[in-house]
């Protein structure tokens, strides 16, 4: 396979997985939120919780469907574009991906139907169970996929066989590879942040027009409580992960911080223009010693720079450096929004500050951008390896030509653009309407309000 085809395959994989991750990162959090809402409704019998549940269920149905269909692609793309990697890594990664299907996908897909369309056919207890099972399934799915991905980052519990294939020597070590715990925590917290920001934005948008909308007032408070707690926690988990990356993947850390020389007391580059061609930064604005303090916990610590690695072993620095800054910058903004929101809750209610409502609305997509930026840091920072220090990305590609990959990449771009525009339109349209009378309790109508058919507009 030529270099063009490999580059195209990388672009295609990056595009399809970045697009896919939007939906699970939202639905993992939303499924848990729905379980909480339905639980609160069953416990308190307050109609507001039911309306919120039925409203967000419609958003969930659209997002989950998009997550499913873009996810099917991933399970085939390993083989179509990365067959050599697949064959070599299957003895370790194969079972993890199979377990994702066996334990999570069937659970989610079966009980999603009950959740959406089973309202009139099962009792409230069983319906709540279905919601909880779907929420549990989304977390299980994250567990296995992060496990497989963490193995690619920090492989452990394996040996390389005579035929070049990896062989698991300890399943526990391979499944719970060194970076797995913090990466799983980071992903789940990210999903909860994404959801809290979207719920907060949708509620704030409604409150901008009508600050007395009861359901939106509740949902905004729930969202603020969530991101006020989770955003600082995410910073701590991220920092913990960063300290491990310095030990386990030093070239990735050097790229994240654009460190070129190995030295004590590294500065922190707030902004920089790292360039692999000159093996240095063309431009930088830095704070002395802070780089070592952040990455190693000691302002005078020696931190490895990129020049310690052969030029062919350095990741694309510019992308990793900037993706990391986008992620952290948005994370800090989330922490600020959370603190502001909590302060407003104690000062008579966040809906009274139009400025806060505007800020919360604008921050709605921030979680998605941060997730994609974070994923970019993790995966581009792993380069040039597909399995860290075991297999290079260029050695893992399939024997397919550049023409085929160009055709499929182009088709993905077109189809994903169409479904993204339509999906975003339908979700935003729902959000602009907000929760309310349409999300009433199941009454005499034969059709369950939880069913997607309830969302159908009357025929023109």
């Amino acid at each position, binding site marked *: 396979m030529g270099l063009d085809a490999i580059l195209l395959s990388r672009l295609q994989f990056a595009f399809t997985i970045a697009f896919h991750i939007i939906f699970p990162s939202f639905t993992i959090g939303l499924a848990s939120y729905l379980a909480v809402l339905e639980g609160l409704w069953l416990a308190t019998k307050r109609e507001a919780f039911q309306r919120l549940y039925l409203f967000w269920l419609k958003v969930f149905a*659209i997002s989950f*469907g998009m997550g*499913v*269909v*873009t996810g*099917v*692609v991933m*399970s*085939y793309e*390993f*083989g*179509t574009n990365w*067959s*050599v990697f*697949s*064959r070599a890594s*299957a*003895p*370790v990664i*194969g*079972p993890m*991906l*199979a377990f*994702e*299907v*066996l*334990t999570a*996908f*069937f659970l989610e*897909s079966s*009980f*999603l*139907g*009950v959740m959406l*369309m*089973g309202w009139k*056919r099962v009792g409230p207890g069983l319906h709540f169970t279905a919601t909880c099972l779907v929420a549990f399934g989304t977390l299980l799915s994250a567990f296995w996929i992060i496990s497989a991905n963490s193995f690619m980052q920090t492989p452990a519990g394996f040996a390389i*066989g005579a035929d070049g*294939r990896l062989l698991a020597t300890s399943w526990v070590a391979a499944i719970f590879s060194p970076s797995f715990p913090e990466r799983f925590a980071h992903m789940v917290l990210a999903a909860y942040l994404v959801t809290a920001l979207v719920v907060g934005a949708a509620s704030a948008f409604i409150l901008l027009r009508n600050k007395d909308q009861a359901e939106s007032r509740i949902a905004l408070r729930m969202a603020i409580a969530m991101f006020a707690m989770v955003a600082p926690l995410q910073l701590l988990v991220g920092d913990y992960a960063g300290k491990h990356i310095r030990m386990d993947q030093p070239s990735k850390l050097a790229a994240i911080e654009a460190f070129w020389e190995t030295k004590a007391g590294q500065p922190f580059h707030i902004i920089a223009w790292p360039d692999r061609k000159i093996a240095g930064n063309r431009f930088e604005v830095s704070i002395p010693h802070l780089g070592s303090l952040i990455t190693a916990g000691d302002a005078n610590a020696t931190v490895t720079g990129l020049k310690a690695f052969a030029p062919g072993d350095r990741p694309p620095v510019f992308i990793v450096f900037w993706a990391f800054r986008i992620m952290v910058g948005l994370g800090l903004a989330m922490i600020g929004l959370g603190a502001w929101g909590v302060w407003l809750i104690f000062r008579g209610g966040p809906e009274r500050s139009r400025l806060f409502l505007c800020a919360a609305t604008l921050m709605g997509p921030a979680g998605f951008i941060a997730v994609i930026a974070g994923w970019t840091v993790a995966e581009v920072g792993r380069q040039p390896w597909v399995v860290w220090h075991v297999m290079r990305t260029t050695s893992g590609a*399939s*024997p*397919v030509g550049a023409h*085929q990959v160009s055709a*499929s990449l182009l*088709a993905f771009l077109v189809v994903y653009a169409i*479904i993204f525009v*339509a*999906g975003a339109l*339908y979700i935003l349209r729902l959000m602009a309407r907000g929760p309310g009378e349409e999300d009433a309790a199941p009454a005499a*109508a*034969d*059709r369950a309000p939880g069913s*997607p*058919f*309830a*969302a*159908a*507009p009357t*025929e*023109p």
Partner: protein
Amino acid sequence: MAGLDLPLIGVVVIATAVLLYVLLDGFDLGVGILFPFARGSGERDVMMASIAPYWDGNETWLVLGGGGLFAVFPGAYAILMPAFYLPVMGMLLSLILRGVAFEFRLHGRRRGKRLWTIAFAAGSIGAALAQGLIVGGFVQGVKVAHDAFAGGPFDWATLYSLLTAVGVVAGYALLGATWLMVKTSDDLHGDARRWAGAAAVATAVLLAVVSLATLGVDPRVGARWGFVAGRIDLAHMSPRLPIPVLGVAGLALVFWGLRRSAHRLPFAGALLVFLSGYLGLAASFFPAIVPYDVSFREAANSPGAMALVLAGVAMMLPLILGYTAFVYWLFRGKVAADAGHH
């Protein structure tokens, strides 16, 4: 797990997953294939409602087929996926378009709804065609060298694979139409009966033509079925004879059920037809998993990985079948005629 023939168990598991996929997603793809023939928007709403609770679970068998092949027979996965690169991509993109249509069609207004109606039909037909092309290309054989695909990007594109592609579309339409007979009443049920009749005739003809063509596609297949150098070898043929008999019986059940105005028999018959076709293919090249050079044993994963996956399957499969059955039971009965007109 000492003493167990893990690769053999693995091949049974993967073959069962793919068969369940074909039968289950087959009927919901079939409903999409029949979309263009519906009388109007209301009828299409009911058609979609008849499969809405199931389609996601049905498609998960495809993910298990792909993910399972990766986990159990990576040697086959790594050859077959590049070999069928374009049809696989076509299938995935088609499945995306029809999958999102379930929700999008409900939220679209006038133009949007029309767009997603077309996308649902086109996606269903596209996915069926792509799957048929893959089956056809598979039966023709895949060129392998040094454990990797060694052929060209269009090796699968032949008259034979085109024939199997059309055959799969007709067969899925039969499954879809007979499913609609089970799930609907009144006018739509009558329409579904007519569609089932037409699809059954098309399926019978295409099945016969594809079966005969398959015997000639590779001499090894013909020999399997007892056709050697223009002569018929009954000793070879007779043990496999129950397979085509099953298919004929399935078709007979479909036609008999249609004549008797039965609601469920035609669907049962259509399932038997697919079972027969599937077994027929399996009997044509087993134990090859990449016809005709790679056997399932050569493609198997390491014994440790196989043992782990199959232990997981043994634990999870009863649960999965249990809640799949629960969902089918929960949504049993006819679909309300006013579905979608809330």
